């Protein structure tokens, strides 16, 4: 579970990138965070993961306040950033193993997890090569593997499906489903309505730093129809990549 209370952030003091956000992401659901480019999704996610500090408000992950006890809170989640061009000089396996070390995953456990993940993401042949030699999608997959290798309770993924091929995208969605069904939390952002529609149990729509809607998908469609002012936003989100 992730709870945000009155969270705000402005980068240069002029306009708020995130404005007084209240949001509760419950257990056992895939929660989509939907909004056009520049809406404030990444900013919100960076605050949840402790990368940037909110100007105001509290954030709790499974009950632990990230500001009060960052180490404990950080052990609860796994985070996939929006750009996968990271640690390019490491080999894929070195990277995943490094992540396992950071989260203290035992040897036996990590071996079997890496094996399973690599198989599911079709990365077995690439693990011994440097990440620099990977394509965009492969980099994305290795970052995701680095997160899943420590079996975090809460998944926080920033636009995780952008750039994945259909098969890997399917695998990731499947895994998100399994994770949510086991009673834990999946929170991911996207700017594509269709993705949210197919995957999410619940969505929140953010635009210009404010939450415009939060609820299930059918509720959302109803909401859009009854609020004509939202039509342009709706159009923006239904446009394909």
């Amino acid at each position: 579970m992730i709870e945000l209370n009155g969270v705000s952030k402005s980068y240069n003091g002029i306009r708020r990138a995130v404005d007084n956000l209240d949001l509760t992401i419950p257990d056992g659901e895939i929660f989509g965070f939907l909004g056009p480019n520049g809406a404030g999704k990444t900013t919100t996610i960076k605050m949840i993961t402790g990368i940037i500090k909110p100007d105001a408000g509290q954030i709790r992950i499974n009950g632990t306040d990230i500001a009060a006890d960052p180490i404990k809170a950080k052990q609860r989640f796994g985070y996939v950033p929006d750009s996968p061009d990271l640690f390019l000089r490491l080999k894929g396996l070195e990277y995943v193993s490094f992540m396992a070390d950071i989260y203290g995953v035992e040897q036996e456990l990590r071996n079997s997890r890496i094996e399973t993940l690599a198989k599911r993401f079709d990365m077995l042949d690439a693990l011994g090569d440097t990440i620099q030699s990977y394509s965009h999608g492969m980099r994305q997959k290795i970052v995701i593997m680095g997160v899943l290798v420590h079996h975090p309770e809460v998944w926080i993924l920033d636009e995780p499906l952008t750039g994945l091929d259909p098969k890997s995208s399917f695998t990731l969605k499947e895994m998100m489903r399994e994770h949510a069904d086991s009673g834990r939390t999946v929170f991911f952002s996207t700017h594509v309505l269709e993705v949210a529609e197919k995957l999410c149990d619940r969505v929140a729509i953010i635009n210009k730093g404010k939450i415009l809607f939060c609820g299930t998908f059918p509720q959302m469609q109803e909401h859009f129809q009854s609020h004509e002012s939202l039509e342009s936003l709706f159009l923006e989100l239904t446009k394909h990549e």
Partner: protein
Amino acid sequence: MNNIWLLTKIMLKNSSRMGARKKGSEWKSLMLVALMLIGFLPMIISGVWFVAEMYDGLAQIGQESAILGMGLAMVSCAIFVLGIVYVITVFYYSQDVEHLLPLPLAPREILGAKFLVALFYEYLTELVLIGPLLVVYGVKSDAGVLYYLFAIVLFLVVPVVPLALSSILVMLFMRFTNIGKRKDRLRLIGGIVGIGAVLGFQYFIQRQNSAMEDIEQMQQQLLSGENVLLNLATQIFPSTKLAVLALVESGYWSGLGYLFAFLLATLAGILLFSFAGDRLYFAGVMGISDSAGTRRKVEGHAFAKLAQMRPAWWSYTIKEWRVIWRTPAYMLNCLLPSLLMPFLILIPLVGIQDRKDLLEAFRGWITGTGGISVAIFLAGSIVLAGMNSASVTAITREGQAFFLSKSFPLPFRQFLLAKLFPGTILSILSIFVLLAIAVWFLPITPLLAGLAVFVSIPGVMLMNQFGFLIDLQRPKLSWTSEQEAVKQNINPLFSLLFGGVLAAITILGVVSWGGSLIPVALVLFLVFGILNLMLYQVLVKKGPEWMDKIEK
């Protein structure tokens, strides 16, 4: 031509963002630059003094123009050597090329702009190296307006030919190493061989001109045409000779003729550069960031080795270590200085080795006032640690990955340890290299050697902590190439400056005290030990807060 200007401006703007710039910290940066200029001041003043002395001596026999020849020759050599570094940085490892290639620009325009950017850096270098000389000469010789006019023109044009030559050399090298999947390593080896050649060259010059400080002897050499550097420079860059003649005869028609000839020679250099560039540059730069994989499954022993479990802080340390080793730019700036710089520092000793009297004096000096020798060794280690960028770029090197690191549940102490470890180990390594060279050249007793290491270790630890402190304050995370992260970054300069100041204070302190070997070593060890503990406390206490503040 318009496009070239436009591109040049963009490239310069991009690269001048040194360090992270927070709002309102511009005046701070200015102050720092001013401080650094003040740091250079003694060098410039002594340069001016040197030139003035030389002038007076040579003027008595009417040969003062030799100074100009010497100055221009030296600056041509310096520009050529530095040009190699600038060209590698600007032409190859600033990865704007990959963004520029798809734009509707002629290759010639990209190359031209890159040349101008490198030229711009050369002007800055030249300003320090030869600016004072030209002015002093003008003042001393009561030169007319024409002299200064010529001087300005020459100042702008002189670097072109040496830079064109170094560009061609680098482009050739990069073109023919752009092969295979181990090209990074191939280039690194080439680079090391190159550095070795430069060191050898320096050694050679040093041996020939072992009495550089002796003004009279130098005048002698200049007059008799025996100055190796001058001869070499005018041989490699014949155009420099024309430049000198133009300046000397600036009052006559012949001066104008020489200037004209010099400009023609420069034009030829530019043409040669663009001819070579058209053929070499793009073939060398394309795919510079590619690296091939084998796409073979890792199994069994290899898998176990790569996936081996380690404590978090140690795993982080190993990650740092691997990245330094595998990234040529990091290796050149963080790893090699520890191994090569001790040689550079000790090259002057080569001169001593041939001179029994000096060696004797040195021996007496070491055994007599022993305390100073240990302080000098410590100062050397500190300067070396200041030259090493490993700790002062510890955060910068991560780039955007740093933000992912911020989401790790890693206690700050462990993070700190992992970040300090590689730099400290490398600095300690350079202590031993320095010691080995010192023992080779100088009569050093085992006791002195032991004590030197004993005090130097806390010394370099302090430098590494300080470097990390700087990087924590102002890391540069938004780089596009690793070269940019370590090269176009002002933080290593602070560490260098701090090392110099700390070394000077140490030596001055010990000299004014004048204690003998063992007490001095003990006191230095204690002082640096306590400073280390204090700085460590500051880092542990304030570090997490500072790290939190790094948001972009």
